[in-house]
């Protein structure tokens, strides 16, 4: 089941040693920059850095193969759909039209469209490896404290931790309930009509929801009895201290973000345009 889900993988690397908050802040800056920039030079640098970060984390491909395959398929679908819906998007963005091959109707192939889609592809390569590394190198319990440290109220941050805590239990309940209902004749296979499958799903989900609600009651009582919500602040048992390395990483993150944003917008256009020879 573990290859299915993306989860923390304990290992000894410099990335594992970093404080969760640092990684969080870095990841947010990185993602925002990745979202706003279309400057291909910055994007190439970021994709390369992403690849290096991934290698440094010593994550094996087999440990994340499921999610990677899923994302590759998702990315392909995304690229094809862009072309299907907006075959001239690149022309619109870059203002020139270099036809490489004539196709059917509006579906011609232009160098601008190819370059535009290459940029979209780069975006995936900039963010996905960093996101995976964030998850596999950070202890789940550090997520809540990290969110809290960057300003999210602790009651909200703790909900993240509780979700992670109960996902395996609910998965197990789901498995048990669904098997027991299948024994009573619930059919979920595609052989059956949509209505029948919907009814079958309800027969599994209703007991799951009701038993989970009972669970929530117990948890909230247990938390209250141990003083959760008593004070406006709380401290965290897990979570690494913020070291000089962390400070350095955050600094590098902020500087790179500032540089990237400046470089992207210095001519008032967030796209790098190789076609006009500017």
């Amino acid at each position, binding site marked *: 089941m573990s290859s299915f889900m993306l989860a923390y993988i304990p290992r000894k690397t410099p990335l594992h040693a970093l404080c969760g908050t640092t990684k969080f802040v870095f990841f947010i800056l990185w993602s925002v920059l990745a979202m706003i920039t279309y400057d291909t030079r910055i994007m190439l640098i970021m994709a390369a850095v992403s690849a290096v970060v991934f290698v440094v984390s010593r994550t094996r491909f087999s440990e994340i193969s499921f999610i990677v395959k899923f994302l590759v398929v998702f990315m392909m679908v995304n690229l094809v759909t862009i072309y299907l819906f907006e075959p001239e998007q690149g022309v619109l963005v870059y203002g020139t039209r270099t036809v490489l091959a004539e196709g059917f109707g509006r579906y011609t192939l232009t160098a601008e469209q190819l370059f535009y889609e290459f940029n979209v592809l780069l975006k995936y390569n900039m963010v996905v490896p960093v996101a995976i590394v964030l998850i596999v190198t950070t202890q789940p*319990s550090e997520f809540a404290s990290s969110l809290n440290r960057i300003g999210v109220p602790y009651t909200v941050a703790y909900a993240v931790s509780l979700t992670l805590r109960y996902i395996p239990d609910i998965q197990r309940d789901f498995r048990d309930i669904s*098997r027991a209902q299948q024994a*009573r*004749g619930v059919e979920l296979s595609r052989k059956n009509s949509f209505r029948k499958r919907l009814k079958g799903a309800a027969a599994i989900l209703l007991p799951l929801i009701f038993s989970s609600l009972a669970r929530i009651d117990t948890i909230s009582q247990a938390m209250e009895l141990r*003083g959760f919500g008593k*004070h406006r602040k709380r401290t965290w*048992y897990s979570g690494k201290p913020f070291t000089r390395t962390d400070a350095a990483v955050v600094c590098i993150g902020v500087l790179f973000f500032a540089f990237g944003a400046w470089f992207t917008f210095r001519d008032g256009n967030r796209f790098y345009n190789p076609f006009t020879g500017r």
Partner: protein
Amino acid sequence: MNTETKPILAFSAFSFKYTAQKEATLHDITLNIFPGEKILIVGPSGSGKSTLGNCINGLVPNAFPGTVSGRFEVGGETTEGKSIFDLSALVGTVLQDPDGQFVALNAGEDIAFALENECVPQNEMVPRVADLARLVAMEPHLDKSPQDLSGGQKQRITLAGVLTNDAPILLFDEPLANLDPATGKQAMELIDDLHKTTGKTVIIIEHRLEDVLHRPVDRIVVLENGRITADLPPADILSRPILSRAGIREPLYLAALRYAGEPPAPEKHPQQVETVAFSPAKLAAWDAAQPEEAHQTRGKPILALDTLSFSWDTAGTAPPVLDRVSLTLHAGERVSLVGKNGAGKSTLAKIVCGFETPSSGSLYFDGEDLSRLSIKERAGKIGYVMQNPNQMISHPMIFDEVAFGLRNRGVPAQEAEQRVHEALETCGLFPFRNWPISALSFGQKKRVTIASILVLNPELIILDEPTAGQDFRHYTDIMDFLESLNSTTGLSLLMITHDMHLMLEYTTRAMVLSDGKLIADDTPAKILTNDDIIEQASLKRTSLYDLALRAGLSHPDGFVQRFIEYDRKERRR
């Protein structure tokens, strides 16, 4: 007890009524508990003992609103207007469900939870958590996630977590409910050691009297219908007919002595089987007077497992969950399947029902290879009843719930109706057929789930912990019902259980799994008197055996069997 000191907990003429209910749950409670005392509160389900516990920790009336009258003081101060947080500084609570109250992602964090909420800095927190973990012998497990801890370990972690704020009162709400017998015994020992070393006031709410009395308590408070009907030292309580009237099971060794004409009395030290005074000659005479047990004839074999193995991990590096298990069940048998958590009991049941596929080995039912049948097809032969009825019930009305399996199988409406009515009749639910399920008690819901399986006409029903969380009266109801099903319809029963009484009294054969291997297959009386198996399977030796040893009886396991037969006849009257 020193009455000069002031009570740390004092109820006087205290009553409580939940807002949602018509009748008060607690009536006129007057109870003083003094610092350093160890008190056991017993009572059947619905007696109000959990409500009383919730009053002590402040969940009543803060989380469960209602009307309070009379006074309740903790540490000399009234609790009126006190929040759960105020009271948590004085009362540490260990709730019933070790899994549900484990809120954090690993053991260390869970111990630290209350400290975190008190804003204790991390550098102070870490050594304190380590100290407390050592106190409950859990120090090596601080990094483990709740999924990797057993029920008993989770309970220890919770206990350590409760000890962090040094509250003078510790409240345990049914600490034995989710533990296997050996772990329960260790839990009582740990609570007793903590009581001795810390001098805290300890309040235990339980209905398993004999198991709690494994270590001494100062007083036993009996609750019935929301009123305190007794508040006495254990020796006195055990010597009076209070317990059986309140639906609390008296210790088995005392029942045996009573039958042998040796009723308990306070001066005989009846609290423990090791201390109780009795005449061995009388017990031996009673034993000799019992008729020899009739030999049971076995029906034809129905379910056969042949060298069945199962492993989660296909690479084969982890030890298998089931390791070459071979066994045969016969028609009309009542068999218990026992073993500690993770021994493979549930996995075995799931493989039989087709929920999991074995790694190797084969299964036959009536000579037919089960591997060729789907989950749905197997359910026509073998029914599976889950532990928690709420996980099975998917319809609001009783009739629809029971009819569900038949409708899914396309049985014509008229035939389905007839079969549902028959199943409801058998389960004593016919008068309720048009009721909503939400109006039923837990035990009745359990019957609905059994009816919904029975309606498919299986030859064997597998029940996962059929009596978990039930008091003696409800437990007896369910088990007598299952037994009558077995004797009238010839239905075979396989019950997964931790409950040694269930094993002894309601099954004729017990199979013991340990680390995925079948290590014993014998009568329950023989198994519960075999120290090797008891230890491997995390069971507990029955006190009847200890009594027989003390009396010097020549066949202690035979005595256990004879007591069970006699006791059942006696209780039927």
